[in-house]
């Protein structure tokens, strides 16, 4: 099987979906002729033409709002927000319309659309290019939120997202777009939305992460070789895979959630609530979260203070393992 990057996995998913399904259209700022500022959509316009793959004016609300109309009228739009930090001009459309069309029309209309957005820090970028805004999207009823961490999942989740009858926010961990390769099948396949991935089985502690931080957790475990950790890549933030989380915590009794999104009211808070509701009596230590601080992501000179690295994850694991009630 050929080795591919996350970026290639996404590109291939878009390519094959467009090939197979004439209703799939791909558009956004710079995605057409240039193939995207990260080259995620490279080659698609040449192959499928300017009507199905096109550059738009800089107008995120128009990009998402028009996708609503297209989805209502028989197309499957896959649109790009150039960076998640620039998705906010479209946030009104996403929250007030994308998430609600099915409910509003009592099922007459549904929106099979995907909103792609590179997200996350660690790429030494300017302001608004490093945010992790999972919370803003996971909090909205009617949206699904998917984040791959491997090339295999990137391809399979993108195909699943395009085929999904409901709108999917697809956040792409740009820091690891090209960081590593993995064997990815050439044929089309789906990775189910709503199912977490068991990265590694273990008995001492459950560590939950997603996106670029999954690899950081894996690296961290080399620093604490005596700890037998179970690592879960959540992959879908919403709807959350409760079973995988709860079953794991019931066995390990200890849990650490790691995310780059800022701390307060973030995904870890939701996950810990679930654990408290459904696995409280199994806990051997207070659940903990290692997250972005409650601040604006610093510009690159201050960003190293903000970014979560394997050493910090290992430090937290040791804290939890040392917990005594």
């Amino acid at each position, binding site marked *: 099987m050929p080795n591919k990057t996350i970026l290639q996995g996404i590109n291939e998913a878009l390519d094959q979906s467009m090939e197979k399904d004439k209703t799939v259209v791909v558009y956004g*700022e*710079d995605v057409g*002729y*240039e193939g995207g*500022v990260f080259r995620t959509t490279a080659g698609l316009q040449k192959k499928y033409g300017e009507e199905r793959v096109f*550059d738009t*004016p*800089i*107008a995120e*609300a*128009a990009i998402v709002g028009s996708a609503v109309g297209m989805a209502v009228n028989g197309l499957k739009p896959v649109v790009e927000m150039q960076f998640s*930090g*620039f998705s*906010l*001009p479209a946030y009104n459309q996403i929250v007030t319309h994308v998430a609600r069309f099915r409910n509003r029309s009592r099922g007459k209309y549904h929106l099979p659309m995907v909103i792609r957005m590179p997200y996350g820090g660690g790429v*030494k*970028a*300017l*302001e*608004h*290019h490093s945010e992790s805004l999972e919370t803003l999207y996971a909090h909205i009823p009617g949206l699904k939120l998917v984040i791959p961490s491997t090339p295999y999942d990137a391809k399979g989740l993108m195909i699943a997202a395009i085929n999904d009858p409901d709108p999917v926010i697809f956040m792409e961990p740009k820091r690891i777009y090209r960081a590593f390769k993995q064997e990815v099948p050439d044929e089309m396949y789906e990775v189910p939305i709503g199912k977490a991935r068991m990265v590694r089985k273990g008995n001492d502690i459950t560590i939950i992460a997603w996106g670029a931080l999954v690899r950081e957790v894996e690296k961290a475990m080399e620093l604490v070789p005596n700890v037998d950790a179970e690592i879960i890549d959540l992959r879908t933030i919403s709807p959350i895979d409760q079973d995988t989380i709860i079953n794991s915590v019931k066995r390990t009794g200890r849990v650490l959630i790691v995310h780059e999104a800022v*701390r*307060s009211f973030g995904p870890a808070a939701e996950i810990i609530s679930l654990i408290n509701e459904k696995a409280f009596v199994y806990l051997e230590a207070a659940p903990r979260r290692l997250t972005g*601080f*409650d*601040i*604006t992501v*610093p*510009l*690159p*000179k*201050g*960003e*190293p*203070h*903000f970014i979560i*690295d394997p*050493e*910090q994850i290992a*430090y937290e694991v040791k804290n939890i393992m040392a917990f005594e009630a």
Partner: protein
Amino acid sequence: MLFENYDPLKGEMLQILDHEGKIVNDKLEPKINKETLIKMYHTMVLGRVADEKALQFQRQGRMLTYAPNIGQEAAQVGPMAALKDNDWLVLAFREFNAMLFKGVTLEQAFLYWYGNERGSRYDDDVRVLPINVPIGSQINHAAGVAYASKLQKKDEVAIVFIGDGGTSHGEFHEGMNFAATFDLPMITVIQNNQYAISTPRHKATKAKTLAQKAIAYGIPGIQVDGNDPLAMYVAVEAARERAIKGEGPTLIEAVTYRIGPHTTSDNPKLYREDEEVERWMKKDPIQRFKKYLIDKKLWSEKKDEELHEEHKQNVLETFKHVEETGDVSLEEIFEHTYENMTPNLVEQMEYYKEYLKQGGNE
């Protein structure tokens, strides 16, 4: 009146100093004093040298992403020269020369692109809002600044810059309409550098000019040769007069060209021909302004060489200082979130300090 004589629908564009550096419209040649003319030129050369060096620094891995201004110096400096010290400058992100003219220091301007927020903390008496990355949103800020000026009967205006790409954004429309509706003392300069990253202007709007968008707001709009510092000066001077008299905002489209990439992350060879770039390099704003100053006996080739050398040294030394002092402390990333740090933030910072104390890694 100036604006009535240049109808954007008829493709009429204001130009005073042509590509060769010759005055082609002597009736409109502005009477700018010698000091200001020299300051304009100095700033443009400093901006150019700083841009070229910044691109080098970036390639050497010493500077982060950088958005160069090469070719757009006149579109920025001409307007600023026509304004007063108490006027406000509301930025997008490609206004390095306008910032320098207005009193942002080279060190501050570099520090921002070096990746340090202190580079957006300009001196107290410098009326410049920080660089504004979300496209188009700054127009509304400028409208608010202008509203406050008007309400408080202050004799001042707000100038706001935006790119051609920014005019596609909803907020451009909202801000322009808002400012026009309340006759606000605002001047909008569109730096039409022909590209929104890779997307050429003609693929972003059917409008023949961007200046004509003013018609829908009921205000004057004018297309100006953006590589002509004198024409830009004259247009903004007239717009300021309107604004101060309470006649409302003006839309000025500076027709120029982005000689460099969108930012250092961009490769323009993917979407445009070298010949096009070369064509525009012949319209260079600095060359034509230099010729104008030499013809006026205000400048010489010898002085020019000295100035370039002086600026080169200045840029190298300033950037060295930025590298020596540009680190950001842990406290700094927390302490500007609110006036006072919340208990949450104190706890998070202390947690991290404890982690570092235990031998943790930054």
